[in-house]
């Protein structure tokens, strides 16, 4: 037991250190927990997607993708034009997704091509590439827009007609465009998608005569219709009409879902498959944990927080979606190929994999996801700092990932999520803590930037050190 604890701490020393740091900083800052939690959940929704976009290149052995700046740039190019053309709300958001994705695809492809020329030094190349792309981006936004491409807008262009203003206010057009999509709208959208897909599938099966049973599709269609009809019941409709979900309800739903999942696992393995090997200890334990967690929501301080924080449902669903995508990718052949390439390019090459192509795909995926992440960030923060919004993207996303215990070689959804929580907690409370401790808020601000740089430096150094030790150990053996 004692060994276990020691092992756990030594394996998760980064996380443990930052948990301690966060608790200390929260305590010192004297900020109320409701404020910290509220701020944290906002920041999680805002930045979470971007951090999760980093996982795929790590899997493919390309290290931490400092080139996500380029994805962010693709997003910002689209956002500028969407605002210029005057689109608003969720239509504007979807259009900017539609417009930025091809740009990000192209950029990602080019970055992948470039990285294939610099295998082994992708990280430094990504860093430098980020700055380089920033230069081109500035050239485009300061001189080409208005200078070469005629753009007439007092709101967006510097007086004089050339170059885009420093900040673009997104209030009234894209601000909260994704966050405010209500659950009702979501259900509706999913319903239409489900119906379309199912009808297409049925027609396809009929025409192709694949003998696939229609009954199953009809049942699913029936369920979809029932769910949709349910939303017309006034009580449910009123609940779903909101775009924010009280954290308390979110936790409750999550726990109920967890319990149901575990029960399904037990039933599936014991009753349906009759698998005697299957141990029900783990699901039972998880159910108990869920019960305890639910009980904890009645503790007063926790309840206060849970009743205080509202989360934007759609944005969080997007984050769940990307986690799910990262997980599913691992189960596909492409994901497995990426892992092989990540472990050893030589082996992958010998196994007949097209290493260069797989690496390019990884970069394209990461760039596109980063681009979407930046769109989510911009719509939430509500002001578009034309020349600043993308510059620190790589730094903060990578630092957050590393704080969660990830490394250059291995990064999981779990680490990313823990990392975002810890890093942004520190980010929220550091200035106030600095003010309380040293009577200087600026010190706290510098401290959090130092943490971001420092954690990356240490992590890169540890990685290099480990890879250096391995060959010398082999030589001895």
């Amino acid at each position, binding site marked *: 037991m004692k060994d276990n604890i020691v092992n756990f701490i030594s394996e998760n020393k980064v996380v443990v250190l930052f948990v301690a740091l966060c608790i200390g900083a929260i305590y010192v800052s004297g900020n109320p927990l409701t404020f910290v939690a509220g701020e944290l959940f906002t920041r999680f929704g805002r930045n979470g997607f971007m951090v999760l976009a980093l996982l795929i290149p790590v899997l493919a052995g390309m290290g931490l993708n400092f080139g996500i700046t380029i994805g962010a740039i693709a997003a910002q190019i689209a956002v500028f034009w969407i605002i210029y053309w005057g689109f608003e709300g969720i239509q504007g958001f979807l259009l900017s997704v539609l417009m930025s994705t091809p740009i990000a695809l192209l950029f990602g492809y080019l970055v992948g091509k*470039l990285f*294939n*020329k*610099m*295998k*082994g*030094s992708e*990280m*430094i*190349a990504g*860093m*430098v*590439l980020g*700055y*380089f792309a*920033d*230069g*081109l981006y*500035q*050239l485009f936004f*300061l*001189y080409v827009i208005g*200078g070469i491409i005629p753009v007439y807008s007092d709101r967006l262009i*510097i007086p*004089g007609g*050339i*170059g885009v203003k420093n900040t673009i206010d997104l209030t009234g057009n894209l601000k909260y465009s994704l966050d405010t999509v209500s659950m009702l709208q979501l259900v509706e959208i999913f319903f239409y998608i489900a119906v379309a897909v199912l009808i297409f599938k049925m027609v396809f099966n009929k025409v192709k005569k694949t003998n696939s049973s229609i009954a199953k599709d009809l049942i699913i269609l029936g369920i979809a219709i029932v769910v949709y009809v349910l939303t017309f019941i006034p009580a449910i409709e009123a609940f779903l009409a909101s775009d924010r979900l009280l954290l308390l309800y979110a936790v409750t739903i999550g726990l109920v879902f967890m319990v149901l999942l575990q029960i399904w696992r037990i039933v599936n393995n014991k009753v349906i498959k009759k698998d005697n090997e299957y141990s029900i200890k783990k699901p039972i334990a998880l159910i108990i944990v869920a019960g305890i967690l639910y009980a904890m929501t009645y503790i007063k301080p926790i309840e206060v927080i849970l009743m205080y924080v509202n989360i934007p449902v759609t944005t969080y669903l997007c984050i769940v979606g990307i986690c799910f995508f990262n997980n599913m990718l691992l189960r596909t052949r492409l994901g497995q190929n990426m892992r092989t390439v990540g472990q050893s*390019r*030589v082996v992958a*090459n010998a196994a007949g994999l097209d*290493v260069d192509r797989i690496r390019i795909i990884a970069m394209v995926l990461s760039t596109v996801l980063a681009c979407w992440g930046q769109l989510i960030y911009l719509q939430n923060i509500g002001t578009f700092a034309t020349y600043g919004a993308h510059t620190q993207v790589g730094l903060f996303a990578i630092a957050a990932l590393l704080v969660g215990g990830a490394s250059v070689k291995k990064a999981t959804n779990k680490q990313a999520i823990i990392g975002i929580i810890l890093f942004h907690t520190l980010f929220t409370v550091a200035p106030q803590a600095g003010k309380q401790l*040293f009577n*200087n808020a*600026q*010190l706290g601000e*510098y*401290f959090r*930037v*130092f943490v*971001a*740089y*420092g954690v*990356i*430096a240490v992590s*890169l*150094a540890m*990685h*290099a*050190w480990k*890879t*250096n030790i391995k060959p010398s150990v082999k030589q001895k053996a």
Partner: protein
Amino acid sequence: MREKIGNIYNNIGLPRIIITSFFIFLLVISVPLGLNILNLLGDSIRRWAMYGILVLAMVPAVQCGIGLNFGISLGIVAGLLGATLSIELGISNPWLGMLFASAVGILLGGLLGVFYGFMLNKLKGSEMTVSTYVGFSVIAFMNMIWLALPFKNGNLVWPISEQGMRNTISLEGSFGLILNKLWSFSIGNPATGLFVPTGLILFFLAVCFIVYLFMRSKVGMAMSAAGENPEFTRASGINVDKMRIIGTAVSTALAALGIITYAQSYGFLQLYNAPLMMGFHSVAAVLIGGASVGRAKISHVILGAFLFQGILTVALPVANKILPEGNLSDVLRLIISNGIILYALSKTKGGNK
């Protein structure tokens, strides 16, 4: 013949050809635009000598095998510490002040460089990636230190709160511009003509010469050998790790001297985030001069610093004539410096499986 031209082309490299022709183009275009070309050249020369030593700091680093040293920020903060200390102590004689600042900076930089070298010896093969972020971290760390240092001199600290150092500190009462003014003269009208800061140029060239002598010395030769072929050098009985530490320490110490020279020529000390990207600029300059990740000579430094600073100096007024707003010079600096670094990186690790 064709092969020969191809060889020359490969040696010089496309980016360098573009940059040199761009520089010449800028100079040529500045005449019809009605700019004062003598003045521009004077500015270029001043900035060349002003940045030169920072660029020179790359030579020992590249030669000893740690690659492009993005971590010269370490030396830069050492130099800044020396300079602030010299002001805090109130050394009013400019020569003594500069001497003191340089001595503290070089010593501190050398010391930090030794530790840094130890660290880099454990990280062979990824020095550049790590050193970039070590450089950033040091600057971020020093941001806190600048705020917290208990300096009292009114020239250093914020006037009202009396806590924490100012962003820019004037060197007027200290060693500002002393090298620039030494033996300086103007060609033509003093206000618009070509101003030659003789002292600064001589100082820069003298430091170049000292480094040249050092690189030619026994230690310097051993160091270059260690960088070029570590296995072979080890076999011939030279301690490669020690050579790398010496190279890193010299590079860091030079960076400390470099920032002091820079500051005296600029007339101000810039603290906090100002030196964040200086490592990148020095790296870019030496690469423009013809260096690669594995090899850098003094001539690369002299040529590269001139081309890089020259373009930035000339581009600004030219751009302002064509486009009245904006700061094209900064944008150009971003594109040129990072473009050339990317190019150099792609040349070294070209497509290995």
